[in-house]
């Protein structure tokens, strides 16, 4: 550090005595007006972001306190024209949980498997590159396009056992259909996060396991996957957040009905084969532009939705902090 300062300080110089202290005290180079304006713009934008987020959360919490009643959670919604007639939010709430569970039941194992293949096997390398771009392409596909593709798949007669069929025509809309397509929405997030975790594990950990005579498969299952559990959990929660928040696939592939409409008489299967709605589709329909048009109910449902998202965010934070406390790999 002193090396930098020395050339600036001339030895017994002929310069006037007033110059020397000035050159030493001015440590930072000058900021022009345009730079200062830029910094102010940075602050303004940062504060604006915080203000928008705070406004959204506070606004919905206030509306939620006004319109959300605990009994809405276990009363079923009805068609109607007034607040009193339209009932509660039980079916959409259960629908959201159901769709989230089904989507993750597919996305989690498939996503982890893809990440393991990419990070641990990845041969031939050309295939690995294609897989990488495939995952990116799925992430970039609008969910409305996925939904339309879903109507093609599930109105196939071969998959008729998954939805309602009448006289050979397959309806193609059910919890199965929506769950399967929603898993594609969550898949890229699970793959990305798991892969990041696997790549952060140093090579010598794997080598130690091979040296102990373990196969690659056993190493992956017993050592690598347990070691990157926080990243898998993060990916799963981000994916779940995306599934819960999706509306387009629900409207197209779940028919977005107010109540569960069951098909058949087998206890659980009848719901899964039938149609229904989730909180997102309920908000969509209860908004002034929707068919139900009950804004106060929409506020209540949106508040629950926002609380779920906040909870997931907080969970991701906790997992991150735990993982950081547990420490990283030392070489």
């Amino acid at each position, binding site marked *: 550090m002193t090396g930098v300062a020395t050339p600036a300080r001339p030895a017994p110089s002929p310069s006037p005595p007033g110059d020397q202290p000035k050159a030493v005290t001015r440590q*930072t*180079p*000058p900021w022009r007006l345009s*730079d200062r304006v*830029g910094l102010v713009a*940075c602050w303004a*934008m*940062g504060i604006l*972001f*915080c203000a*928008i*987020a705070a406004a*959204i*959360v506070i*606004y919905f919490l206030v509306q939620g306190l006004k319109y959300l009643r605990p009994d809405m959670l276990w009363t079923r919604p009805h068609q109607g024209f007034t607040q009193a007639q339209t009932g509660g939010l039980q079916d959409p709430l259960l629908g959201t949980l159901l769709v989230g569970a089904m989507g993750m039941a597919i996305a989690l194992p498939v996503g982890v498997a*893809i990440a393991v*293949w*990419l990070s641990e096997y990845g041969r031939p390398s050309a*295939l690995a590159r*294609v*897989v990488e771009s*495939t995952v*990116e*392409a*799925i992430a*970039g*596909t*609008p*969910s*409305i396009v*996925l939904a*339309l*593709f879903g*109507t*093609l798949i599930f109105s196939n007669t071969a998959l008729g056992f998954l939805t309602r069929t009448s006289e050979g025509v397959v309806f193609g809309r059910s919890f199965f259909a929506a769950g399967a397509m929603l898993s594609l929405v969550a898949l890229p997030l699970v793959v990305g996060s798991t892969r990041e975790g696997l790549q952060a594990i140093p090579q010598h950990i794997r080598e130690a396991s091979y040296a102990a*005579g373990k*196969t*690659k*498969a056993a190493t*992956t299952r017993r050592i690598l996957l347990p070691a990157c559990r926080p990243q898998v959990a993060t990916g799963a929660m981000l994916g779940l957040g995306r599934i*819960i*928040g999706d509306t*387009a696939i629900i*409207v*197209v592939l779940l028919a977005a009905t107010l109540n569960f409409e069951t098909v058949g008489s087998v206890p659980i299967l009848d719901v899964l084969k039938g149609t229904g709605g989730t909180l*997102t589709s309920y*908000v*969509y329909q209860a*908004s*002034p*532009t929707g068919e139900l048009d009950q*804004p106060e109910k*929409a*506020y209540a449902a*949106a508040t629950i*939705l*926002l609380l779920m*998202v*906040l909870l997931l*965010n907080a969970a991701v934070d906790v997992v991150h902090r735990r993982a950081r406390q547990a420490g990283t790999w030392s070489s």
Partner: protein
Amino acid sequence: MTRPLPEEVLPLDPEEQHLLQDQPRWSDRRVELLLGALVCSVIALLVAMIVFVFIHAWPSFAHNGLAWFGPGGSVDNQLQTIFQSGESGGQYVYTFHAWPLIWSTILVTGGAVLIALVASLLVSVFIVEFAPEWMRNVLQPVVRLLASVPSVVYGLLGVLVIVPFIGNHLITESSKASVAGVIQLSGYSLAAAVLILTVMIAPIMVSIFSDGLRAVPRSWLEGSLAMGINRWRSFWKIAVRTARPAIVAGTVLATARALGEAVMLAMVSGSVGFAPNPADGLIFFVEPSRPLAPTIITRIDDLASKPANQTLFAIAAVLLFSAAMLSLAGWVAKRSMKRYLAVA
């Protein structure tokens, strides 16, 4: 002569039994094949999606040719005619000129991406370099929260807060009267759509931009500072320039998200097949329209009618194609920037 090992001397852990077998149950080869098959089936799914969407879209493109993308007539009437021709059982009608929808997509997406790009760049520079510690600790969760709010919640906020505000305070009675014969100005508008879409896509940009900016080697900045250039200029000239591939990547991702946004835009854009005209002056910003993706979701009940079904798939094909072209453009742009540094 080798003596056979007595079995009782070496009791084997059942977990390690596979060491003695030629083909253990979960041998590496089998696991690799199994995972490979899964991976290939995901690729097959994507290829099938592209192929089937384009096959189903083909009749609509074939009947209209390039006029599909051009202006002409009212889009909403055309969609209704197409739908009815499938229901009535007569000759299918495919005539469809999507220009108002495409123009609206360009305006809404372009406007939101431009505003979000400037705002996100400022915020990510702020987060990475200039914000004090406490501000950084507030901003990071805020960005994550804004990114994870469901689009339908943004839409509800738009319909119940922003749209009435625009309708009641920003549109004068005289401007409503001036276009009364053509469209209705009620607050469902381009401005509302762009505003909310900006808030939706900016967090995506911020998170990718700031990852890229953080990856710039500290010593490069220190080199610039040692030359007597101030912190602000050093950061913009060195770090932001180095992180350009990340900026391209974030912009591409955010644009793809904006293109595919259906639900929120269906709620606030006004849902009218009208092409806003910049020549209208300030009214332009409060004119209603409807981009491509929301058109699919508002007309989703038409899927039962075959020609309408194919027209909707044609819209989906256009979305899919633009998303693909976008990633291609991003890839090309990043490639030409790689000579600076591979930060992305």
